[in-house]
């Protein structure tokens, strides 16, 4: 994932006492604040709160009922009516069906893979030319609050959470506590404004890793909160269960979003750069206005775009307001197009291009580790292994044996699992982890892991598809140039 997903603070039903003056930038939902404080005061309960693994998703709400009744309804708003049904529904489930979605199970949810109006490749192309709305509400939206939140995140990820400014996001990886450097999941971490002096981070993780991540965080937070000296550095976690998360991606995203922004706050999207976020209300049709929503600039397609975290009760209305721009400008897009778009952008999909045994260095994600955290004593899990890998063998480090690379393959598309072999002696030198015909380039693109030494761009190799070698060239990613909004270039 890589979804520059990030968003919301529970800003739900609160506008009451809150005045979203000028820019609701510091809209730190008072409710969250109260809650976080209350929880911090009673540690015992805080600890149990943090354990919201999947089976408890229902149950989690009754824990929360004690702490903050406000959050009870958001835990499972859109759940299926029949208890026998194993899959969850996002708040947009009915909207998907109304738009002719083909639904598939993904990450424990019914998710749209494509819609009747466009094929996967047509939807892909439409996104690059106009813009598309993706329902990514299946992803897990978490809030970590507390004086120790930044330090806690600096233990479980290689990111510099302490140095992250409010409303800035970073791609990151959760790392295994066994210090192997292996990746538990990839994630986007967004720092939110402090709440009553407590740091707060919004962390979005993959739906497919929900159970694993829940268990990981529960164990890590227990450990953290119980440690000597952490009395004043407690951390609590809360999941925005049932909330919507909607991605708007493509060159027309800014215009489409700007059209529905509530401009009483004078929000200027031109000033919202890639990797930044704001709170803003949006117009919902009629005289209605949404609650302040966390809107983050970024995404999982390589295009300019936004991700919007929305309370369950407003998710349909916000999505419909975006769709009102008309089908020439904006369409719904499903998991099918999402996958080929992210592959063209060179982004990883956990469970395919990343797994528990992959380290960030092998995955070509060294750039997510800030300079000051590249030493063995940086204090995050696996720092020792990762610091050695960051230094090539020739310079005294261990380097890596294998690394993630891009490939362009002639003839047949190479898919996940295809072997990469040396052209010289047909020895196996790697494996493809994702691949498809690129709708933008008209070529077959793939990513995979290849033995150190074969990883340089331009290296010619073969990939076995249906037992036959196909010519392939190691190619720099992204395959399609990214178009992130980084501001108007200085003249």
């Amino acid at each position: 994932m890589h979804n520059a997903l990030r968003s919301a603070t529970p800003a739900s039903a609160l506008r009451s006492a809150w005045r979203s003056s000028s820019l609701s930038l510091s809209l730190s939902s008072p409710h969250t604040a109260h809650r976080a404080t209350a929880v911090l005061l009673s540690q015992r309960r805080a600890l149990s709160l943090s354990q919201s693994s999947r089976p408890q998703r229902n149950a989690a709400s009754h824990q929360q009922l004690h702490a903050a009744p406000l959050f009870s309804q958001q835990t499972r708003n859109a759940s299926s009516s029949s208890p026998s049904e194993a899959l969850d529904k996002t708040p947009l489930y009915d909207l998907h069906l109304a738009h002719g979605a083909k639904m598939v199970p993904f990450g424990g949810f019914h998710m749209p893979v494509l819609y009747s109006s466009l094929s996967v490749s047509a939807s892909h192309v439409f996104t690059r030319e106009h813009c598309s709305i993706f329902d990514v509400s299946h992803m897990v939206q978490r809030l970590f609050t507390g004086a120790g939140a930044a330090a806690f995140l600096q233990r479980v990820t290689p990111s510099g959470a302490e140095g992250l400014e409010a409303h800035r996001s970073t791609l990151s990886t959760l790392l295994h506590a066994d210090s192997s450097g292996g990746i538990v999941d990839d994630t986007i971490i967004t720092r939110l404004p402090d709440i009553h002096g407590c740091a707060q981070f919004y962390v979005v993780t993959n739906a497919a890793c929900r159970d694993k991540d829940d268990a990981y965080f529960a164990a890590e937070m227990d450990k953290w909160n119980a440690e000597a000296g952490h009395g004043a550095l407690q951390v609590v976690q809360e999941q925005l269960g049932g909330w919507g998360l909607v991605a708007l991606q493509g060159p027309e995203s800014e215009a489409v979003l700007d059209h529905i922004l509530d401009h009483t706050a004078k929000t200027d999207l031109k000033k919202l750069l890639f990797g930044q976020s704001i709170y803003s209300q949006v117009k919902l049709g009629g005289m209605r206005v949404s609650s302040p929503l966390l809107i983050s600039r970024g995404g999982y397609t390589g295009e300019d775009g936004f991700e919007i975290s929305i309370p369950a009760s407003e998710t349909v209305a916000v999505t419909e307001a975006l769709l009102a721009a008309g089908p020439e400008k904006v369409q719904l897009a499903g998991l099918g197009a999402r996958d080929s778009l992210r592959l063209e952008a060179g982004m990883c999909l956990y469970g395919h291009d990343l797994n528990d045994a992959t380290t960030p260095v092998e995955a070509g994600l060294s750039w997510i580790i800030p300079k000051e955290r590249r030493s063995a004593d940086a204090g995050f899990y696996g720092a020792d292994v990762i610091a050695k890998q960051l230094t090539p063998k020739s310079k005294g480090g261990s380097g890596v044996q294998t690394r993630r690379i891009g490939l362009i393959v002639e003839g047949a598309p190479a898919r996940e699992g295809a072997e990469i072999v040396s052209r010289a002696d047909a020895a196996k030198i790697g494996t493809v982890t994702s691949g498809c015909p690129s709708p933008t380039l008209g070529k077959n693109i793939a990513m995979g892991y290849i033995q150190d030494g074969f990883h340089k761009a331009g290296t010619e190799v073969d990939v076995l598809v249906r037992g036959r070698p196909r010519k392939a060239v190691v190619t720099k990613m992204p395959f399609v140039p990214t178009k992130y909004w980084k501001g108007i270039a200085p003249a």
Partner: protein
Amino acid sequence: MASIARCLRSARPLGLSSLVKSSVARPIANVRIARSFSATSTNAIRKYTKEHEWIDLSADNKTGVIGISEYAAKALGDVVFVELPESGTKVKAGDAIGAVESVKSAADINAPISCKITAVNALLEEKPGTINQVPEDDSHGGGWIAKVQVDEEGVKDLEALMDVEAYAEFTAAEGEDH
């Protein structure tokens, strides 16, 4: 790699199955029953496999034409690559003879019966999308895959296959089965 049928049925989140096993009812029951497009072998009878290939056998039971069904073509989505068999290859019923690929998925094309490949539709290398437009057209410009020579074994294999009505029922049931 999966056969077309497996592709249609597989549980992979982004697989082809998805396209067919949607929770949205799809009007697949109306598979085209009439064969208005056949340009050759007017007496041929079209038979279908559970894996969504079709074969026309000539009246003299000596030759045939193989392709993939309209149902499969639709489920695959935009076909962007077709791997054709090699002329002269002898295959048994069920052997992989090629593949069709869309952005999202790859599906094997299996031989519906034992046969020997005598010609392939090279047009599909240039214009793989033909498979989406006219997958059951065995004429020049159509989306057929290969022409084959058939012996007695092949003719026998044919007995296990479905006629057009049976196949329509089969796909209708498959489409509803979710």
